[in-house]
C-alpha cells in the first residue's frame, strides 16, 4: 500500500495523447501545477480536459492550450483566457460548456457508481438540447450522465502514502469529486506525510480513490484577483 511515486513525471506515466483527463481546481486555486508542467513537457496532445476553468494565458491549463495539446475542453467557465477564446472562436478547440453544479455532480456520480441522475439545471437552455426531460413535483429536470476520465489529477494540501488527502480552504473545490471519478487518480500534495499523521476523522478524500501520490514542489499558487481592504 505504497502509492508514492517520485515526481510529476512518474505520476503521469501512462497518460497518452487522446486521453480524457480531469483536472481539479477553480480558476488557479487548487490546480495540480506540477502535473500540468509535466504534461506540457511530455508533449501529449489531443487531450480532452475536464476542468471547471481553463486557466489563464500563461498559467494553469493555459500552458497546455498554448502548446495546442488540448483538443476539447469540458468546463463551466472559461472567461479568463484570451488564447482559449481565440482557439474556440476559430474552431481549433472544441468546447463543451456545462453548468458548474452539473459538472461537479457528474464527476461525483461517476465516482459513486451512479450512471445518471436528474437535475433542474439547464432545462430550457442549449444545455438541455437532446437530453431527456422529466417532471418531478411539476418541475422539469434533465437527465445528466456520469462523467468519467482515464486519469483524474488533483492537488491537495496534505496527503499520506495510502492516498488519504486533506485540502486547504477553497483549494478543495472540484478536487474531491474528481478524485473519485478517475480510472486512475493522481494526487499531488504540498506535504506528504506518513499514514497515521492525518486524523482519520478529518480526511477529505479517503485513499481508496487515489492510485498515485507525490509531493509537489515550487508551488506558485498564483492569485488571479488580488483584492484587499485598507488597514484603516
Amino acid at each position, binding site marked *: 500500500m505504497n502509492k508514492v511515486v517520485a515526481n510529476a513525471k512518474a505520476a503521469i506515466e501512462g497518460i497518452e495523447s487522446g486521453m480524457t483527463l480531469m483536472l481539479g481546481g477553480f480558476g488557479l486555486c487548487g490546480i495540480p501545477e506540477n502535473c500540468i508542467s509535466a504534461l506540457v513537457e511530455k508533449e501529449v496532445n489531443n487531450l480532452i480536459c475536464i476542468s471547471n476553468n481553463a486557466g489563464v494565458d500563461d498559467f494553469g491549463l493555459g500552458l497546455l492550450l498554448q502548446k495546442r495539446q488540448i483538443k476539447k475542453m469540458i468546463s463551466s467557465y*472559461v472567461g479568463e483566457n484570451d488564447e482559449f477564446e481565440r482557439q474556440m472562436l476559430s474552431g481549433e478547440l472544441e468546447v463543451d460548456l456545462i453548468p458548474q*453544479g452539473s459538472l461537479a455532480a457528474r464527476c461525483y456520480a461517476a465516482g459513486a457508481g451512479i450512471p445518471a441522475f436528474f437535475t433542474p*439545471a439547464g*432545462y*430550457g*437552455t442549449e444545455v438541455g438540447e437532446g437530453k431527456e426531460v422529466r417532471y418531478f413535483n411539476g418541475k422539469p429536470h434533465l437527465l445528466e450522465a456520469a462523467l468519467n476520465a482515464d486519469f483524474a489529477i488533483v492537488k491537495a494540501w496534505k496527503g499520506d502514502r495510502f492516498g488519504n488527502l486533506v485540502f486547504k480552504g477553497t483549494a478543495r473545490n472540484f478536487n474531491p469529486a474528481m478524485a473519485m471519478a478517475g480510472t486512475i487518480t493522481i494526487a499531488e500534495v504540498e506535504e506528504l506525510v506518513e499514514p497515521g499523521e492525518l486524523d482519520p476523522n478529518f480526511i477529505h478524500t479517503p485513499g481508496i480513490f487515489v492510485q498515485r501520490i507525490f509531493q509537489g514542489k515550487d508551488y506558485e499558487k498564483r492569485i488571479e484577483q488580488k483584492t*484587499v481592504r485598507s488597514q484603516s
Partner: protein
Amino acid sequence: MLDKKGIAKRIAQEINDGWYVNLGIGIPTLIANYVPDDMNVVFQSENGILGMGPFPFEGEEDADLINAGKQTITAMPGASIFDSATSFAMIRGQHIQLTVLGAMEVAENGDIANWKIPGRMVKGMGGAMDLVASADNIIVAMMHTNKRGQSKLLKRCSLPLTGVKCVKKIVTNMAVLDITDEGFKLIERAPGVSVEEIQNATEGKLIVEGDIPEMKIPD
C-alpha cells in the same frame, strides 16, 4: 438614477436576518457591504465556502481562499468550507434563501440570459444555470439598458437562455420590478426617475398600478 452601489444598497434591503445568500459576480458582490451589522447573513460562494467575509488586509491574502469571482477573501467565524459537489448540493437542494445575479437580458416571463453572445462572447455559465434553475428566490441586479441604450427588460430574450421563468424580482438603476404572470410589475422608482422614463426604457410589458413610490436608499 442609481449607480451600482445604489442597486446593491437597494437589494440589501431584501435580505432577512438568518438568510443564506449567494451573490453573483459584479454588482451582486457589492451587496455584502450594505447588510446591516446587526443582521446575521451568511454568504455562500459556490466554489465552496459559507460565511465569506470581507477582503483580507494587504499582505494577508491567501491564494487558497478565494470566492467564485476568483477574488481573495476571508472567512468569518462560523464559516465552513466544502467541495464543489456539496456546494451545489446546497444550491440545488434549495438551502439558499436568496440568489442575486447579473443578467444581459430578462424577459417579462422571468427568462434570463447572461452567459453567451453567439459568435462574440462565450465565457460560460459557471454556476448560474444551477442557481437559477434551483433557487426559489432570484433577484437580478443590472442596468436597465445596455451600453447602446437598449432595454434589457424584454418581451423575450434574444440571447441564449440561462434559465426559464425563474427570475422573481429585478433591481436596476431605474426601478424595482416584480415578475408577475402579466409581465414586469413596477414596484419602486429610483430617486428622480419618472414612470414614463422607466416605461420608455422597458421593452417588455410594464404594469403600473397606482402611485409608484420612490426607493428609499440610505446613504
